[in-house]
Every structure is written in C-alpha cells, then in structure tokens.
C-alpha cells in the first residue's frame, strides 16, 4: 500500500497542474484577467446602455458574480476529467486517488487569486473602500473551494464509468451562468423562486461578496450557515462516493 507523504504528493500534483497549464501561454497568467474583463465589459454595456438598471457600480457588481463563477466552472470541469488525464499515473502507482481531483481544484487557485486581485482593485477603484468585513473574504473563498472539491470528487469518479459526464457538466455550467445572480440582484428575483437561491452555494457566495464589498455589511448569518452546511456536506458526500467507486477505477481506465 501507499505509505508516502500526503502533503508532498499533493503539492507536487498541484505544481504539475499549473506548470503544465501556464508553460504554453506566452502571457502566462495575464490571460486569467482577459476573460473576466471582456465578460464584465459586455455585461456592463448591455445593462447600462441597452437595458439600463438602477444598480450603482455595475462593473464591480458583475465582477462579484463573475469571479466566483469563473473559478467554479473552470475548477469543476478540469477536475472532472483529471482522473482520466492522469490515467497513466493511476494505472501505475497506487497513490491515494482522491489527491488527483483535489490537486486539480487547487491548481486553479492561482487563477482565482489573480481574479480576486482584479475584483478588489475594481472595488477600490470605484471608491468603495476597505472595511473590516473583508475579514470574511477568506472564509467565503475557502467555502467555495470546499464545495468544488466535493463536487469534483463525485463527478471525476463518475466520469470514469460514464465518460459523457464531462459534457453534462459543461451544460450545467452554462445553465449556472443564468441561475447564479451574476448580472442581476437578489431583489430582482420574484419571491416564489427564492428557494432556488437559498440553498445554492454559488449564489450564496455572490450575495456574501456583494454585502461585504459593496454594502460594507457582514453576510447574513442564515446565508453563512446554509453555505457552510452545503459546502461541508458536499465534501463529505464526495469523499464517501469516491471511496465507494475508487476500487473499480482500474478496471475502467
């Protein structure tokens, strides 16, 4: 059985992930900035010029939605195919296999950090200022990472047995762009649909970011409790599902 050092393994897998990703890009990590900037500009144009809204600081408002959304979709979809992509390793060395999708999620964190920097510089640039509720930010991001890890454990394992899982996830991500309040606010949602948003961790993260960064208030306690419960619950379920399925990986890879 494998008796190595878990943290060393994980750090090597993470490094592999982003070395491979960024080595072939001439501008490297700067590309991480391009996509959110383009989407933000397009949405800002549409919702201030074509369908004007009363929402102030619209670019910041949109980035609060885009940054967590971008990380979520990218980390989830790359982690889903991670076991297949690292099939050569999994077929050859008996490493703890859950390390592979988890390392892929963490490998996306550099990307996330850059986008967070972009978001925070917009916040300051729009004169919204720094407040003590910023201390909640690391908690909110940590919960998002926890949530993605849980989902990635499930989807990457299922993807080995049913290779189309990847495509299902791409569609889910497209749907999420509309279901997560990226370009509209909570107050615009009719009350009968509120339940969809209440237990949606990604929506909760967007709401939390907006209250911290734009309204200078702490996120609502009920929101934080729901977010924490769902994120940790998803991770727990992910670990259990992965544990159940991993013994059959070899036969299907």
């Amino acid at each position: 059985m494998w008796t190595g050092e878990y943290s060393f393994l994980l750090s090597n897998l993470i490094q592999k992930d982003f070395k491979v990703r960024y080595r072939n890009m001439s501008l490297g990590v700067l590309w991480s900035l391009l996509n959110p900037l383009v989407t933000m500009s397009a949405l800002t144009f549409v919702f201030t010029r074509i369908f004007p809204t009363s929402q102030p600081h619209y670019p910041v408002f949109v980035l609060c939605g885009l940054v967590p959304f971008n990380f979520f979709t990218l980390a989830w979809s790359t982690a889903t195919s991670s076991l297949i992509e690292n099939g050569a390793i999994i077929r050859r060395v008996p490493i703890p296999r859950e390390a592979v999708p988890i390392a892929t999620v963490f490998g996306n964190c550099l990307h996330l950090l850059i986008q967070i920097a972009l978001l925070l510089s917009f916040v300051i640039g729009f004169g919204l200022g720094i407040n003590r509720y910023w201390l909640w930010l690391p908690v909110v991001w940590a919960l998002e990472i926890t949530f993605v890890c849980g989902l990635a454990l499930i989807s990457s394992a299922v993807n080995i047995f049913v290779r189309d899982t990847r495509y299902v996830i791409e569609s889910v991500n497209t749907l999420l762009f509309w279901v997560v309040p990226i370009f509209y606010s909570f107050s615009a949602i009719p009350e009968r649909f509120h339940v969809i948003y209440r237990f949606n961790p990604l929506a909760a993260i967007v709401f939390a970011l907006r209250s911290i960064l734009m309204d200078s208030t702490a996120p609502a306690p009920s929101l934080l409790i729901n977010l924490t419960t769902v994120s940790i619950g998803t991770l727990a379920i992910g670990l259990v599902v992965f544990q159940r399925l991993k013994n059959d990986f070899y036969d299907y890879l």
Partner: protein
Amino acid sequence: MIFTTTYDVMALIKFDHVSKTFSHRGEAKLLRAHIRDRLKAQPKRVFYALKDVSFSLEHGQSLAVIGRNGAGKSTLLSLVAGLCLPSAGQVKVIGRVAPLLQLGSGFHPDMTGMENARLNASLMGLSRKRTEEVLPSIVEFAELDGFLNDTIRTYSTGMVMRLGFSVAVHADADILIIDEVLGVGDERFQAKCFDKIHEFRACGKTLLFVSHGAEMVRQYCETALWLDRGEVMLKGPADQVLEAYADSTQRTSG
C-alpha cells in the same frame, strides 16, 4: 547507500486462491452503453484474467512470472502493486512496492526532467526530505546532466526510460516489480541496470520479474511461475518451469 531503507519490514507477497475477472469489454464507457446493458439483460460475459492463483514469496526471494501474451502476468503485477483488488481470494503484500511498469509513462512531456523526477518520487511515496536526498543520485544514475532543465518532450525514448528506471530504483522499495522493461537505452546502460538489480538481490530485496527471456530469468530468479490464460500451469524451481514452458511453446509452434 540508497538501500538503507527507512522501512525495515520483512517483505512478503501471498496470493491465496486469487481470481480477477473483468465483466466488461473495456468499451462500456459511454452512457449509451450503460443504458443498453440495462435494457437488454444479456448474460454477462465474464473474462477471467486470473483464475485461482496461489503462491507466496518470502523476504529476499525472487520469482519470475512467465507466459504468453494475455496470460495474466500484468494483472498479477497490478494486484501486487495494489492498483486493483482481486475479485475472489486474498492478496497480502507487506512492504513497499516499486512498480517498474511502463517506465516513464507517468511523466508529463511539458515538465522538465527534474520536475518529473521530483513528481514521480512523491508518487512512489518518498517524503519531501528523502526526495531531496536522493535526487542527486537519481540524476547521476540516469546520466542526464545538462538536460535536466529541458522538457521531457525533447528527450529521446532512451533518456525517458533511463530517468524512469532511475526514479524507480531509488524509491526505497522492499519489493521490486520488473516488467520486461529492460530494453532501456544502450547496452552499456542495460548492463548498469542489471548491476543495480543484482545489488538489490544482494541486500535481500524481493524481486518479481516478468520476462520472455529464459536467460534473464535464470540469472535473477530461483523460482518461476508459469501462467496460461489466467491459470497456473506450473510453479517451482526456475529451470524446471522454463523447460516445461519451452517444451509447450515448441509443441504449439511446431
């Protein structure tokens, strides 16, 4: 030096009536195939990769596994390496296993030789500290000076194999699995690999060896196991098993 392992365990491999079956044809991977299987209750075709295999290998012994292609040799090695579980029976392995299966297949072409060596050391289960200790000897053994900061993409097949072999033999293993990989590099490097394996034998490591070459088997292993279509045909002293195997291949081909 590198053989002063941190794990002083008595290595042991024990197979007790082990069978390994594959119930799919290796293609049932898309949703369509899953649905088809559910709708049409076809009798499942079960393929036995190994059938009722028993043997044991004690600390310091070495065993050669011989047989034709598809005899179940790779499955047997995968079970020892802990890559899959048996469908029936019990597999017991004590000690750290270094699988030299498909050398270098875990390397990433876009990472440098050094990065790959470090990654693979961690995959093999070496600690951070131990990896930094053995990296110089890994590099030295692989004879890749001057190429270490180039990506593996630029390496020749021989260079990749050399690095793969070098990492595997530095993994502080108690059990070494060698799967016909020693077509590594040129003759001189092959000789170096064989020396290394002799060194392993000399310090009492357990060796599991898969080969078609009778000469190599005689050289390294006192016992042999002959597999055919997943079943054990014969096990015993290497000379006897090799002779019986040679007889049977001559009969079928002639």
